[in-house]
């Protein structure tokens, strides 16, 4: 009784991430972006997605990775959410990968706690690991901590 699952993959700092295919609305190349002054740092700006205004979240910043080298343009992975689509900025787009639920393991405890909260688990592929991204957390802006 094998359960198969399709993941749309992409890369951030050479790590491979995946999101359930059903959650992805579309993948598009770099779009001109409008910065939003005073907005939380993880929000890169607004893009015009065929007349719809979509907020773009920089996943590198969200996960505390190094900033994207200058000159490298990010790609947009647009995910569906209840209150409208949100775009996640990633380095590179990979293929759609079919994974086996039996190759799934929870994220190791040793993973940097800042990144760990965004990762729902790990799929062990033949030649590398595929990190399952928790999109809800990945596009959320940090809630102000109880002051």
């Amino acid at each position: 009784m094998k359960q198969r699952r399709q993941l749309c993959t992409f890369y951030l700092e050479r790590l491979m991430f995946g999101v359930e295919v059903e959650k992805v609305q579309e993948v598009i190349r770099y779009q001109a972006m409008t910065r939003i002054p005073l907005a939380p740092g993880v929000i890169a700006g607004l893009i015009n997605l065929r007349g719809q205004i979509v907020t773009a979240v920089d996943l590198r910043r969200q996960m505390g990775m190094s900033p994207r080298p200058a000159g490298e343009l990010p790609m947009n992975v647009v995910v569906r959410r209840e209150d409208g689509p949100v775009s996640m900025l990633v380095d590179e787009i990979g293929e759609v990968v079919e994974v086996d639920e039996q190759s799934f393991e929870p994220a190791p405890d040793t993973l940097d706690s800042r990144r760990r909260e965004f990762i729902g688990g790990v799929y062990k592929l033949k030649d590398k690991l595929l990190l399952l991204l928790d999109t809800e957390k990945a596009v959320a802006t940090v809630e102000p901590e109880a002051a």
Partner: protein
Amino acid sequence: MPGGELLSEMGEIIKEFLIESNEGLDRFDRDLMALEQEPRSRELLDSVFRAIHTIKGTGGVLGYKKLVALSHVGESVLSRMRDGTLALTPEIATTLLAMADALRSMLQQISGDGGEGDADHSAVQERLAELLIPQTQRPQLQRDPQTTIAAEVPRLGEILVASEVCAPEDVHVAMNQQREGDPRRLGEILVAAGVAEPSAISEGLKTQSEHHEVASNTLRVDVSLLDKLMNLVGELVLARNQVLQFTGTEKDSGFLGTAQRLNLITTELQEGVMKTRMQPIGNVWNKLPRIVRDLSVGCGKQVAVEMEGAETELDKTILEAIKDPLTHMIRNAVDHGIELPAVRTAAGKPPEGRLLLRAFHEGGQVNIEVSDDGAGIATEKLKARAIAKGIVVAEQAARMSERELLHLAFAPGLSTIEQVSNISGRGVGMDVVKTNIEKIGGTVDLQSVPGKGTLLRIKIPLTLAIIPALVVTSGGERFAIPQVSLIELVRCDGATRAIEDIHGACVYRLRGSLLPLVYLNRELRLPEPASSEAVNIVVLQAADRQFGLVVDEINDTEEIVVKPLSKQLKPVSCFAGATIMGDGAVALILDVLGLAQMTRVVSESDGRSSANRADAAVAAAVGRESWLLFRVGQQGRMAVPLSLVSRLEEFAADDVERAAGHEVIQYRGRVMPLIRLGAVLGYEGTDAGSKLPVVVYSSHGRNVGLVVDEILDIADESVAVEQDRHTGLLRGAAVLQQRVTDLLDVPALLAAQRLNEEQGARA
């Protein structure tokens, strides 16, 4: 599943029934009241009768027994009136209106849980039945519902008789033939009998069908569908704008022609779709005479409602939004404005009060006015009340202009009427009206002449989805500013002189008064422009305050489609939304009120967050007052109200002593603490001369000496205090003797120096 389908079909029928019945009842109210004015109008009576009859008929089919029972009695009463055996009296009208309310509450119940509810409406029913009692014999009421409904459309026979094509007898003969089983239609029989020409019959049929068309050329459309269309048109407008951008660079004449055509069609389509959402304001107004009638009967007043411009159209969303504020304004006018008949007569006015509703278009906005010829607003009372409620202090109130006093009526928690009636004056009132109107981008103004009446004017935008906006650039980013907030544009060259700096708060002198400046680049942490030879100031209105927004460049005005920002951006209060510009780029829309609050041009509690608006009005202009001007340090020009100063003295520097770490001086047999303003305020270049000019300030029976560098003058001027520029020890700044002067907040200073008597007592 067929069962499910049937159920949902029933749901549809019931929904339709509810919509129709509610509309019918609204018509019933309206026409019944019109009938009171015009008792002889058969047309109105028929309309009233039909409304109830239809509800009864459909309600019966759907099995709503209570609804049918009640409307049946009502119908009986109306039927008597139609027969001429009963004349409409105010008592009957009131009872019939009560019946309409009872029917409404039943409909409400049905729309909630499908049942008629347990509410007891027997009282209304009995009162209606009583109206029938004097008559000895009850008329036969069981009519065939269809005949009466069909009465809306005149029958062919009636038309033919009316147009004198044939005699009534001929029609009767033909109809009898039909009844006896003649399968032919009435027209055919008449033609066959030779009493009418075929052309006359077809003419008659045409007349009849025209009546049908009037009833069927309107269509019910779900509002959400219109909303969707509206959004799509918004997209189209944007796409059109993008296409038009290319017309500048393309030379292909075919393309140019097509683009032009696209432009025209889009504009027309946009107008057309906007129109579908437009409804006459009369739809909302129609409910008001009923409210006025109930109210005026309730408080023994006589009020005539007049309407002008009921056909003025507004976007449906806006119409919904103004419904409640409008109702509230009407209630206020009847309850507080219009006097009792006796009072009116004594004042030489007709006993019947006049309430005028006016609506008209003006400059892309809709003006709605509610005016009455009542007592007007007693500003003295308003003032006393505002002071009693702690909304303003007596001192402030004394300096307020008549207009500002009037606007106290919008302060929350204020009601001028001494006795709280069950109608209005429950503490929520005009402030809610103002907040609601401002929420949809409108403004409220109030004018009143004691003894003559009150006028409330609302100005609201036609539609919310597409708004005109000014596009500006700052730090390389474009921003849209809604035109409603825009007052004027100022461009000043050689900016350094025109803009003055008060402790980091920049102000610009605009025609003699101080305009606080907000630098968009700084507020949004955007890069500063390279050089600033000229300064572009966009003068904006936020709540009751004006401020100048300094931007790098002023581009153009454009119609923009407002799109909401996603939830992640909610905490950024200075943006109202985003829009897509002609070139496809996204631009943010500035929220002027949010920006003003962020930069503290208006206080947090101001504006949207509903609290104290009065204080803004107060601060806007503190009236005429005497000020003591003095110099602190080399530059500091300051003032305190003269009323707070008890004496001006000059002490020798050598006489200053120390007590408990404070500088003191012996003054009139007591120890007076000294405060060196230069040191406290951090001004440089304070003289260390042998003479100390001192402003003696008296507080709670104690004297405090403020050491200044030079006493300059006394100015007797009315000043505009920019109170929101309040920074620590300064109350704000004002122009005194043509120069920007800081106003010292002495109580704050004393508190800071722990010389405040009360604090001392507590310690």
